[in-house]
């Protein structure tokens, strides 16, 4: 038992912190800290820097750029990246599709996809959710019919983050009928430039464009883009969800938001009520930081699926980001009234967007943390059933 960080871990943290500040341009870190929408090329620029430093895919197999770092170190790295305001390596690439290809893809697929995924030369988005299949993922309906050397794909995905910036999409598609809902699902990589695909923006209440609907109409996808075996897509999705959880709690992100709340608080820091909320948030965050370490230190084989205790990280981490956003919002006082997001903001970085608008926007947008990626209600179901063993007989 060693409840403190070791000397080695502390040095690692310092080295990472130094490297991030040294290597990633300040304009990028400032924009992230102020939660302004980042131009695509800045995101790419940042990830290439991280990849050069070995920070983009440390959890991958060594052969594909992974590092032999402990889970604790990887968690430290993730925390520091977030905290420094460095855009985190695109999760769709490095935490989701990459590990699935590394584990189940053909050698050809690995060579073709993994390096550009790590370097963000190829931007992936995730095609899981469909209208009518949100938390109930297994009832998805997008169809892929095998026709010779390709699939003909038709259907719709929704809530697709950054589909408008992405080059590729990884999709769960239905390749078989009948049987249980989980069966007959396959995992397919689709080039978004293929004819028959339309990406339509979903405008959200934070005033920006992150989300999309993606429509597929008779899209021809080469059969070689199938990952693993046909009909095993559900297993791969489970594997994917069991992947890298080192930053699931968003500890560094919350730390950054709370630090900023302190910065903008001014005289509110002496207001006992606001101050007390900040104190609670900082305590909860300290606890979460350690809970995160405990979960990641408890390494499991990815085939075991996600550790159900990651649900704690998801719920608590999301709540903290929401609390931090509220603290910032409330610090604005009456001046929040003039901090709406102007129409069309976000297309270019600084167009009409002052820091206060970004705060209001972040408050609205933060509601997503308890919705996407498995709503908090689903996470509590998981905790009750998988950890506490409740309700199995009902």
């Amino acid at each position, binding site marked *: 038992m060693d409840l403190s960080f070791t000397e080695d871990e502390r040095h690692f943290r310092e080295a990472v912190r130094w490297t991030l500040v040294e290597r990633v341009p300040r304009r990028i870190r400032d924009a992230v800290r102020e939660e302004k929408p980042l131009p695509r090329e800045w995101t790419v620029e940042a990830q290439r820097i991280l990849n050069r430093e070995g920070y983009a895919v440390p959890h991958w197999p060594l052969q594909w750029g992974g590092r032999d770092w402990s889970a604790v170190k990887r968690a430290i790295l993730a925390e520091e990246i977030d905290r420094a305001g460095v855009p985190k390596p695109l999760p769709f690439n490095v935490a989701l599709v990459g590990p699935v290809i590394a584990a189940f893809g053909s050698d050809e697929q690995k060579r073709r996809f993994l390096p550009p995924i790590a370097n963000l030369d190829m931007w992936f988005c995730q095609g899981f959710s469909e209208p009518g299949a949100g938390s109930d993922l297994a009832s998805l309906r997008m169809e892929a019919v095998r026709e010779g050397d390709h699939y003909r794909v038709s259907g719709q995905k929704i809530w697709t983050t950054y589909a408008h910036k992405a080059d590729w999409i990884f999709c769960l598609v239905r390749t078989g009928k009948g049987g249980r809902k989980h069966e007959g699902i396959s995992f397919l990589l689709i080039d978004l430039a293929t004819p028959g695909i339309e990406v339509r923006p979903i405008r959200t209440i934070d005033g920006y464009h992150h*989300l999309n609907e993606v429509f597929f109409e008779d899209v021809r996808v080469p059969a070689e883009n199938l990952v693993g075996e046909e009909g095993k897509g559900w297993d791969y999705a489970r594997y994917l969800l069991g992947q890298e959880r080192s930053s699931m709690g968003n500890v560094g992100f919350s730390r950054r938001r709370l630090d900023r709340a302190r910065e903008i608080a001014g005289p509110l820091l002496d207001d006992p009520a606001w101050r007390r909320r900040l104190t609670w948030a900082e305590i909860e965050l300290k606890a979460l930081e350690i809970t995160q370490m405990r979960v990641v230190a408890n390494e499991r084989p990815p085939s075991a699926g996600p550790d159900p205790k990651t649900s704690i990280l998801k719920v608590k981490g999301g709540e903290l980001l929401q609390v931090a956003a509220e603290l910032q*919002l409330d610090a604005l006082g009456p*001046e929040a009234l003039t901090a709406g997001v102007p129409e069309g903001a976000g297309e270019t970085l600084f167009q009409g967007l002052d820091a206060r608008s970004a705060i209001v926007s972040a408050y609205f947008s933060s509601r*997503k943390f308890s919705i996407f990626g498995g709503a908090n209600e689903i996470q509590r179901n998981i905790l009750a059933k998988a950890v506490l063993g409740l309700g199995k007989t009902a």
Partner: protein
Amino acid sequence: MNFEPGEEQQLLAASVARLFEDHAAQLPVDPAAQWRDYRDIGLLGLPFAEASGGLGGGAEEVMLVMEAFGRALGRAPYPSSVLLAGRLLEAVGARDLLAGLIAGDRRPVLCLYEPGRRYRWDDPATAAERADDGWLLSGAKCAVLDAGPDSVLICPATTADGLGLFAVPPGTAGVTVDLLPTPDGRRAANVRFDAVALPADAGIGDPATNRTLLAAAIDGAIAATCAEMLGAMEKLLEITVDYLGTRRQFGVAIGSFQALQHRAADMLMAIEQARSMTIHAVAMLGAAGEERGAAVAAAKALVNRAARFVGQQAIQLHGGMGLTSEYPAGAYFQRLTVLENLFGDTDHHLDTVERAGGLKAA
């Protein structure tokens, strides 16, 4: 006690509800035409005494109107111009400006807050000095909801004699109105007065009593805001319950999940308590200063807390749909967020209650 609206009150409520819903459905919006509708239905004169040229409606009638306004997400500058600025004009005896407002010709708005001072309004850094036979007004105001190029800006300013109130007509030289979007898609302004020369009669009211009358006008506007929030929350709960009954997951309507049912029940309870406190605030509007102030602040604090909870949970229960701009839940959430902030956030009002020594029991 009797909580049932009388026959006339029911008629009023029904007719404004119809009007506000018509306006909400209008595309594109024609603000001038809508404002004429407000005038024609009598809303512009509603809260003012008959002696002031108004209809003599009471705080209960205002509550009914503002509930309907909140339900329909009304966008007209009614609360800011009529219920806040107008009531102040009536209280300080600015009869011409009031008559212009009631006639639909003038649109006064009150410039209450200043940058960096949060919700403090009673000791403005903005100042007016006597100059020749008029005034020179200088300072900066922020967060003026519904201010526009055509507004008469009513500006509290420190003078040698106490708190002055100055009416600044549209187009006055030295006035800069910086229009910005509000988080719920309306407009608000930051205003700068650079040595603005005003005639002697621009000073309205009496510096000896302005502060007291302004406090009363603000309390009235806060009670009206509580009613607006109440209407918005009730409608938002209806939208949410509707969604829960329609949207299916895992083969059943999601409204059949007990955890979601209980959340909706908690929203209902929060709203019912908010309604009760709004009633309390309205009933206490006639009371003396500090007692009225504590009751109104207590109401706003509780309604604020309810609004944050109801707004956030409505989004949660809608899932991703709640985050989209197309679906109505998000607009209600945005509106509630703005109203929560208006006239002071929750902590601000709790401080007010505590400074008054707490709530007096019956």
